[in-house]
């Protein structure tokens, strides 16, 4: 199997997956939860559609504007404008004893702004530190490869995975009301960690093979390295994916979208480490040679 020879096809597949997400991101943006923008979230357990209609009527009569509804098996979550506990008490009074409020959360503007800032900072700092570490760890890699190039290619793969997940969630948010919360940021950072984890395993083998096989045929060394680590990559990802599927099916509704984000990201991470990160090293090498 020659993955490197078909590398442009694999880049194309990545683009086809990423572009719809980016389009959605530009058109509709992200559906942000109250973790990022001030507001309240009310979650009720419901038995049927009537209950949901009843809740919505009461919210309307109290002049509470609903900006997002998320329905799962027996829970319904409303994202509304900021309301205080007095208002919440009034709503509960009107609801009576049939419908139980499971969760009530209000987040002010200060916290929301802070969470957004911290999320962006965390993503940037983590990426930067990882490039730094890879550059350091691969410093002994023989010519013509350079350790900085390894670091940058790992980050490109990482950005690829982040874009896939953010794009998918932009689409999910627009059509199904799925919201981006602070757990999503956690998922994103985990995916980044995992993506780099996967990429490093492949890169590590390239480093080893460059020493063993020499670097005269760089594309071939990279291809061999990908093939040698393929079984491991697939098996590891499969294990994690199986665990995530178990969590998705039985882990409860509060972490459902968190798990979905991880599933999308880890699938993408496996793909990008095999079909993007290492082939990108070859592309860079070829481009350098052409320039000379």
């Amino acid at each position, binding site marked *: 199997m020659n993955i490197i020879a078909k590398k442009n096809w694999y880049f194309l597949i990545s683009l086809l997956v990423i572009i719809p997400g980016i389009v959605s991101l530009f058109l509709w943006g992200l559906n942000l939860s109250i973790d990022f923008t001030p507001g309240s979230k009310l*979650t009720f357990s419901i038995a049927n559609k009537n209950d949901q209609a009843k809740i919505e009527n009461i919210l309307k009569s109290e002049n509470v504007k609903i900006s997002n509804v998320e329905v799962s098996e027996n829970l319904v979550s409303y994202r509304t404008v900021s309301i205080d506990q007095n208002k919440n008490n009034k709503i509960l009074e009107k609801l009576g004893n049939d419908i139980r409020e499971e969760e009530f959360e209000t987040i002010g503007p200060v916290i929301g702004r802070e969470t957004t800032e911290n999320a962006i900072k965390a993503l940037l700092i983590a990426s930067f530190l990882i490039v730094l570490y890879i550059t350091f760890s691969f410093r002994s890699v023989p010519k013509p490869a350079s350790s900085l190039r390894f670091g940058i290619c790992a980050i490109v793969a990482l950005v690829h995975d982040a874009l896939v997940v953010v794009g998918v969630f932009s689409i999910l948010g627009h059509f199904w009301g799925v919201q981006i919360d602070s757990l999503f940021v956690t998922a994103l950072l985990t995916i980044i960690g995992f993506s780099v984890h996967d990429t490093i395993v492949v890169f590590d083998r390239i480093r080893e093979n460059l020493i063993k096989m020499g670097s005269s045929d760089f594309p071939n060394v990279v291809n061999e390295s990908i093939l040698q680590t393929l079984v491991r990559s697939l098996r590891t990802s499969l294990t994690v994916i*199986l665990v995530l599927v178990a969590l998705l099916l039985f882990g409860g509704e509060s972490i459902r979208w968190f798990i979905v984000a991880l599933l999308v990201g880890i699938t993408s991470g496996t793909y990008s480490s095999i079909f993007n990160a290492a082939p990108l090293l070859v592309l860079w090498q070829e481009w350098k040679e052409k320039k000379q």
Partner: protein
Amino acid sequence: MNQPRATLWIIVFLTIAAIIIQLPFLKQLQFRKGLDLAGGTSITLKADMKNIPISQRDTALTAAKNVIERRVNVIGVSEPLIQTAKAQDYRIIVELPGVPLQEAMNLVGTKGKLEFREVLKATSSAIPYEDTKETGLTGADLKDATPAFDSQTGQPIVSFRMQDKSQDKFAKATQKLIGKQMAIFLDKQYISAPVVQSSIRDSGQITGGFTIDATKQLATYLNAGALPIPLSVLSSRTVGPTLGLSSLEKSLFAGVLGFVIIVLFMSILYGRLGILASVALIIYVLINLSIFKLSNLTPYGITLTLSGIAGFILSIGMAVDANILIFERMKEEERRGRDKDVAIELGFSRAFPSIRDSNISTLITSAVLYNFGTGPVRGFALVLAIGVLVSMFSAIVVTRTFLRFIYK
């Protein structure tokens, strides 16, 4: 080779210790469950510091925290968590498992009211509020209070100063009470009842065989009244008890299921090696759970939340990765015609750089998450980081020792 035997004993010892820690009768060792699992209310408060001089802001914040702590202790909440935090402003984070929102709001809602009252019926122990009479003196009349030492006896004391406008009032009231007790109450709770030695005008001191800690605490209470900081709610969250319980049950079930899947998967893929790895994985889980429990004996207790459990289950997946890397490498070396025992050693040593680099990158991510995250994000990061560290031990040390014993 003596070393693997010693390592084996260490593993056996750690495993037995971990099993003992998991036994339910050790009441002091419990998991601390977050609000999303236990149900309850979490409130983030902002302290309005605009009237407080910068040098006293930290003290004022601690004082306000202590006031809330006292109120919470009075109603007897199990495992409350009350923390101060300095972000862009001064904050107090209150987490009360099992307490509904309204009740929690009542606890944090009003500012601490400190009163000085005349004692009608003198007793040696705590004086009930009913047995005292108003003097008109409150915390608002105090300027500040600090723990200090008596210049003559060296005894720990609390010295305090009055507000300028309150000096006449205080002098008059204390003049009347010379030789009698004056009780100090915070939110109608008895704190102390020093005997008034002389009329107090601009400043005074409270003596009475205190320990240093006691003077610190008394000063804090006095300051809580003297420096009442208005608190406003930045965010609040309430989780009903049923949702918490069902989340807990579901995540535990998912965790067990995930674990069983991994064990089956490894056994099918790698046969006897897979079973060995599974035993190492059981040890991994036991050690991890023990760390969660033991951490609660230290100030850095780990609170288990839904995302924390997800992080833990994920770390099991990552722990397996190290084993897969090693086993694949061993197979490769065997295919190249190496002897089994050589292949084992080579498998470990050649897979090590990948395991090290990939785990360090995960540790970097968790460290960043821990630094920038709040609440659930922090829990997740901490659990993931511990998981990665323990997994290095289980995959490299435990599995390797087992293999060395079997293929010798």
